[in-house]
């Protein structure tokens, strides 16, 4: 049975999984969850994803949620298909985990909240606050200073190979510009700019950046 990705073609976290599926050339069907009608909060949906969020996958009856966990599971399941996105050697893997943790603690909290403020709030009929957005961007900037140092010594966040840790940054990083911030193109951090251009030009991201559609891979 083909893998089913339950989510919304335009959602950030669905795109995170979509980009990964494209990298690994894994065929999948996108099952659109009707967010406007609150489908993700219905009892039937909560049976599968108790936090009432998208996406989740159905792998021939096996259900998994949390976009980063979904990517990690599928990488384990298809280690020899497409690029290797998690290293296997102990020290390289340690550095991968370090970079993945940095994304969650030093990038996502600020990028996520900035995007919510300026991009999602209007969509939800709420009023964005520019000062709040600016603060999140400033906080992100302080972390990107450390990224600049790291990326001056290596090509990607976990080392010299592209990994899931780089991919995880794509969905929210991409929407910062829509919110009005060009922080990832700020030439005062040339290595961040170089890295961001590199990872956003990958075919797999280009294929999903405007929305995820089903793929026969």
């Amino acid at each position: 049975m083909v893998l089913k990705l339950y989510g919304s073609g335009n959602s950030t976290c669905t795109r995170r999984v979509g980009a990964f599926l494209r990298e690994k050339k894994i065929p999948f069907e996108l099952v659109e969850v009707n967010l406007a009608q609150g489908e993700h909060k219905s009892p039937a949906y909560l049976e599968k994803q108790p936090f009432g969020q998208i996406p989740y996958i159905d792998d021939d009856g096996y259900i998994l949620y949390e976009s980063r966990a979904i990517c990690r599971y599928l990488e384990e399941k298809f280690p020899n298909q497409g690029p290797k996105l998690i290293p296997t050697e102990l020290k390289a893997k340690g550095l991968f985990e370090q970079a993945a943790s940095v994304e969650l603690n030093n990038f996502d909290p600020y990028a996520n909240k900035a995007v919510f403020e300026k991009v999602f709030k209007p969509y939800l009929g709420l009023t964005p606050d520019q000062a709040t957005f600016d603060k999140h961007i400033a906080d992100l900037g302080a972390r990107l200073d450390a990224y600049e140092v790291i990326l001056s010594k290596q090509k990607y966040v976990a080392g010299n190979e592209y990994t899931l840790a780089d991919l995880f940054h794509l969905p929210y990083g991409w929407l910062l510009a829509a919110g009005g911030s060009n922080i990832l193109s700020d030439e005062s951090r040339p290595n961040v700019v170089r890295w961001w251009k590199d990872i956003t030009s990958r075919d797999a991201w280009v294929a999903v950046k405007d929305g995820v559609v089903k793929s026969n891979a």
Partner: protein
Amino acid sequence: MVLKLYGSPFSTCSKRVATVLHEKQVPFELIVIDLAKHEQKSAAFREKQPFGQIPYLDDDGFIVYESRAICRYIAMKYADQGTKLIPTDLKGLAIFEQALSVEQAHFNPSAEGAISENIYKPFFGKAPDPTVFEAHLKKLDEKLDIYELILSKQKYLAGDELTLVDLFHIPFGYSLPTAGSDIMNSKPHVAAWFKALVDRPSWQAIKDNIHSTA
């Protein structure tokens, strides 16, 4: 060379690593970073940890930072000794990753937020805001309702065996009463699960103060 953990005897994230070192029976030396003197923001420290945060691990010259990454590295390197903390079968590993993602996305922001408001802020001479604290607790309560559901069906967060993900919750969860909330005791399955974690010798050994074991 014995493992060196650069951190603070009282810091939550240093304790996260110390618990795992104890579970895996790995001797280590704690090198205390002087937070009062902002040693973690010094140029020398940032050479090792560019974000200027504690802890980091020095394994015979190999440096790793981010407490959860350090824990994963230790659990992988010493897979054959102490408590098994990472599943090896594909589906068990996937549920483990799902639970880890839930800890960081759903538990940590509210738990850490609440502790930051009522414990860290006063420590730095700032007045805590009760509205902010209550907002964090309200969110945490909603998430713990889901934890209650999950833990009513299985013993631990990733299945019926203890894994790293359960241990990751201890440092901030343990400080919530000091911050003014008994939330970890408020739902029966969550309470039983958390008590079992806190009673483990690995947490008891370091809960007040981390000591070098090598």
